[in-house]
């Protein structure tokens, strides 16, 4: 057994969590070897690029999360094309599908998720997007004159629709909800972004249940209540399911994801989990599994700090962004919203220049902005400091949000 200062840490899954954990461990002075084991043929990359920059234009500007030179200089070993089968906590090792094993004193399980698939909806003309290979395969199909269907108008579907349009394709988006992104970002932002996609020329088929999807050699036919539509290719974006197989065969407690406490610890000592696969016990929101890069990074950083000797929790308000065409959209704290929270709008969401705030008992609990990320920087501070604010102040654009930070001792 290695002395405490020379423990080996293994990350299972080489994605965002792995890259952030490796960097944070070294920043924190963790001295032992760090091994990242991933089943993809490449090292960690920016998964968000797959529906944005990479899909629109190809190229790998800013794509890679870790360079070989950095790994070399920091004693971080990256194993690609390596599938992990099980963590054997009793023998302190990680077992691979090829029969080999890697010693591990501490394990971070970060296997992410995979697209939810529709039974029978497969084949040459059907796409599910999670990996670099998926995105590159789809890009080849996005060209002038081709008709592309996108099933699901969430973040992924709407970004892919925008990228497809940008490459000259005709795009049809199908969703049973009447408004894009409303479930994730609220009705007003949903309506504003639905309007944006409509104006750019996306053919929106919203509010209709899909009764059948028939892939064939010449196209994919989508049948809704109001008729049938045949597209050249169909991209199915109906969410992900967490990759919990390794956790289950390792004996970890798994519900909707691998259950971890606020520090990211699983039910086994020295085994942590983070990112899309982890159902985290969040100090503000309770148990929740979130699929955002920033959350994955913060969870990884907290685990790294804990492992390096400074116990930490990932307790920040959840934050994410999505880029729709050239429009920047961000959300803060939306995980914890309740139907009874009061919504206040600042600026104009319909004109793609505004922020929606959510208030509860005089305190800010969340915000979502279109082209106003600066409002959310202040919102985070107002939330962290628990400063009382009123709906009138938030809505009044002559009130500088930053000035609200100074009125700390307001009694309500």
């Amino acid at each position, binding site marked *: 057994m290695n002395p405490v200062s020379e423990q080996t840490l293994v990350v299972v899954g080489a994605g965002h969590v792995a890259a*952030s954990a490796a*960097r*944070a461990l070294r*920043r924190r002075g963790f001295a032992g070897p760090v091994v990242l084991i991933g089943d993809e043929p490449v090292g960690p990359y*920016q998964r*968000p*690029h797959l529906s944005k920059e990479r899909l629109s234009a190809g190229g790998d500007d*800013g*794509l*890679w*999360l870790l*360079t070989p030179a950095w790994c070399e200089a920091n004693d971080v070993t990256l194993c690609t094309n390596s599938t992990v089968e099980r963590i054997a906590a009793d023998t302190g090792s990680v077992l691979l599908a090829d029969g080999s094993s890697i010693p591990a004193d501490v394990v971070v399980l970060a296997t992410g998720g995979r697209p939810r698939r529709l039974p029978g909806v497969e084949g040459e003309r059907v796409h599910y997007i999670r990996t670099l290979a998926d995105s590159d395969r789809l890009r080849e199909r996005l060209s002038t004159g081709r008709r592309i269907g996108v099933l699901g108008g969430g973040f992924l579907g709407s970004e892919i629709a925008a990228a497809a349009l940008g490459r000259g394709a005709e795009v049809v988006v199908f969703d049973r909800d009447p408004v894009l992104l409303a479930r994730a970002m609220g009705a007003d932002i949903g309506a504003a972004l639905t309007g944006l996609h409509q104006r750019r020329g996306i053919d929106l088929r919203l509010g209709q249940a899909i009764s059948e999807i028939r892939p064939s050699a010449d196209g994919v036919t989508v049948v809704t209540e109001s008729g049938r539509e045949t597209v050249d290719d169909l991209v199915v974006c109906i969410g992900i399911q967490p990759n919990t197989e390794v956790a289950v065969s390792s004996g970890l407690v798994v519900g909707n994801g691998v259950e971890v406490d606020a520090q990211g610890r699983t039910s086994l000592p020295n085994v942590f989990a983070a990112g899309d696969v982890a159902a985290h016990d969040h100090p503000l929101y309770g148990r929740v599994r979130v699929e955002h*890069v*920033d959350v994955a*990074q*913060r969870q*990884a*950083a*907290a685990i790294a*700090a804990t492992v390096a000797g400074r116990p930490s929790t*990932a307790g*920040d308000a959840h*934050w994410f*962004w999505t880029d729709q065409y050239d429009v*920047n959209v*961000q959300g803060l704290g939306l995980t914890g919203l309740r139907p009874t929270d009061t919504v206040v709008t600042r600026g104009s969401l319909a004109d793609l220049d505004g922020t929606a705030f959510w208030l509860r008992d005089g305190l800010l609990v969340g915000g979502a902005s279109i082209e*106003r*990320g*600066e409002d*959310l*920087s*202040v919102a985070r*501070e107002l939330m962290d400091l628990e400063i009382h604010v009123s709906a009138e102040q938030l809505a009044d654009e002559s009130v*500088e949000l*930053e000035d609200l*930070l100074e009125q700390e001792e307001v009694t309500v």
Partner: protein
Amino acid sequence: MSEPTAISPAPVVDQPDTDSWVHVAELKDLARRKRKQVTVGSCPVALFLVDDEVLAVDDTCIHQERSLAKGTLLNGQVICPGHQWKFDPRTGEAEDQDGRLATYAVQVTEEGAVLVAPQPVTPREATTSDSATHPAGR
């Protein structure tokens, strides 16, 4: 009006050439919002007022080119509105990210004119690839 010549010549080797200071703003322009976008030569520069000192860095974020003067100044840090990266306006460095913004020398005359030297004190460096979002908390 202030005259750039009113400023004493730089005695130290590192100091920028004072002949070409550019008058970009008045100090009172920064009083309220504590930040302002100006142009030096053809380069957009962001001014920030931190602890009564005017600091100047590139306005254009090293990540995806959003304007930092549109961002937020909190606890002496500038937060980019694009993806919430944090920058130290004294050094131009991004927290937990590679790359940096160019920093510029600033003089404020007795009359309250803000002058910026056109050549950066420290150069801009592109970011490589750590992260698309703001850095994971320390």
